[in-house]
């Protein structure tokens, strides 16, 4: 039993938001060491089973015609990029719903962070940086594992698709993070899953061309961020990019990230002051 030394420490205020956020790397690394095993099932085994069931087995019954499959020569080639994008969505949605609620409400970890020189921006940036890391790992593994199926036509396209997954992931993660950060009661997440994520997963062009939907539903599907991500991913890996559409998709997703960030800082600031 001794008293701690009273010599001054090197404690200081961060000189920028990014530098501040980097101080949280150790925290998130500790979290990741504890949870990465759990993410294998949801972000790796689950999508792979979908590839096998839908792409390989059910795909065997689909008469493949590139004209009706947005340029894909088989249903497998059609559905794999769709599942890559859909998995990016489901991965981040899992990371910015209940875990965020835990940080602000259940464990109040964020409150212990704001008692230090770090503020809301640093905390949000670090959390979202971790989510970006999660989606990057998931996408890299998924793209690598599905490569032997032989549906990828363009190597640079696959690299581009990898970058797209991070962007798509953030386009979902940032606004949803903002929503979760200000939420009082977690039951609303059920609605996010049931009325947001699941319908998008099923109707935003991952499993079948959105052109097969009735006109109003098709317009709705095309308005979802997932459709932009699916279309972008598919064009890139199949090696048939339409650059003007690529620009539209990227711009759409970027806008979501930027607006989401603005909203996130605002909502989290308010929440932390109550």
């Amino acid at each position, binding site marked *: 039993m001794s008293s701690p030394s009273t010599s001054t420490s090197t404690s200081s205020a961060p000189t920028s938001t990014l530098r501040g956020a980097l101080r949280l790397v150790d925290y998130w690394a500790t979290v990741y060491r504890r949870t990465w095993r759990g993410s294998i099932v949801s972000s790796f085994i689950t999508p792979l089973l979908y590839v096998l069931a839908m792409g390989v087995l059910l795909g065997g019954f689909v008469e493949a015609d590139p004209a009706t499959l947005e340029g894909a020569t088989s249903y497998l080639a059609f559905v794999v990029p769709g599942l890559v994008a859909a998995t990016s969505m489901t991965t981040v949605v899992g990371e910015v719903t209940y875990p965020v609620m835990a940080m602000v409400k259940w464990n109040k970890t964020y409150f212990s962070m704001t008692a230090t020189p770090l503020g809301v921006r640093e905390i949000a940036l670090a959390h979202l940086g971790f989510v970006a890391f999660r989606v990057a790992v998931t996408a890299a593994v998924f793209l690598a594992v599905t490569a032997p199926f032989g549906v990828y036509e363009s190597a640079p396209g696959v690299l581009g698709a990898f970058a797209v997954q991070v962007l798509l992931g953030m386009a979902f993660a940032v606004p949803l993070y903002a929503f979760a950060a200000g939420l009082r009661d977690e039951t609303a997440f059920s609605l996010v899953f049931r009325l947001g994520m699941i319908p998008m997963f099923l109707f935003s062009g991952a499993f079948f061309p959105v052109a*097969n939907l009735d006109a109003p539903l098709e317009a709705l599907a095309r308005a979802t961020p997932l459709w932009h991500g699916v279309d972008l991913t598919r064009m890139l890996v199949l090696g048939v990019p339409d650059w003007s559409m690529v620009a539209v998709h990227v711009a759409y997703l970027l806008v979501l990230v930027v607006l989401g960030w603005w909203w996130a800082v605002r909502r989290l600031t308010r929440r932390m002051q109550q």
Partner: protein
Amino acid sequence: MVVTASTGLILQRNFLAYRRVWWIFATGFLEPVFYLFSIGVGVGALISGFEVGGREIPYAEFVAPGMLAASAMNGAVLDSTFNFFFKLKYSKLFDQMLATPLTTTDIARGELAWSLLRGGVYSLGFLLVMLAMGLVSSWWAVLVLPATLLIGLAFGAVAMALTTYMRSWQDFELVTLSTLPMFLFSATFFPVTTYPGALRWVVEATPLYRGVVLCRELTTGAVSWDSAVSVVYLVAMGVAGLLVARRRLDSLLLT
């Protein structure tokens, strides 16, 4: 399963708990409907259809009973694993109930009854959607509602028994790892004849396969002695699950 007064009390407690969040109850019915429209109708447009009982049927008509059986499984498993575990370990709801004249059997029964009641409401809703879409082609379909209750009971009882062995949330990955392959591969989206010899037997031995073909035989009218095999299989599974769950709950809660 004997419905007693105490079962009614637990049903009433769950009813009150859900009254405030009725929309969670209401939207729970949507997931299989979304799958039906997406895979059954959307992907179905790319597939010509399958033969059931010597008759070629459209893909949506093939998938719909599969979704009905799978959602009965998913709902029951979700209630008996995650929700049950939460009440067991975190909210300590059962400890609170056992401080009253209620017994562990009452709790197991009450929770299962609630799960079945909810699953039954969802199944009925789904069946009406199928009817509206013209995906029901036989009067045998009136028996599909009890069939989904049987599926829910069988899976719910076994899942509850297994939940009593769970130590942390991490263990629940095993739940996903067993229900998801069944959901995707137990002849829900394509016929079992897709699989070669031995693999086909494995699939035919899974409980969800028994549930899926039972529902499909009922909605398409292709009922046979095989259907009776499925019924016996599911009943046996449910009884075994209930017996284990009751014994385990006694040793877990009455210490």
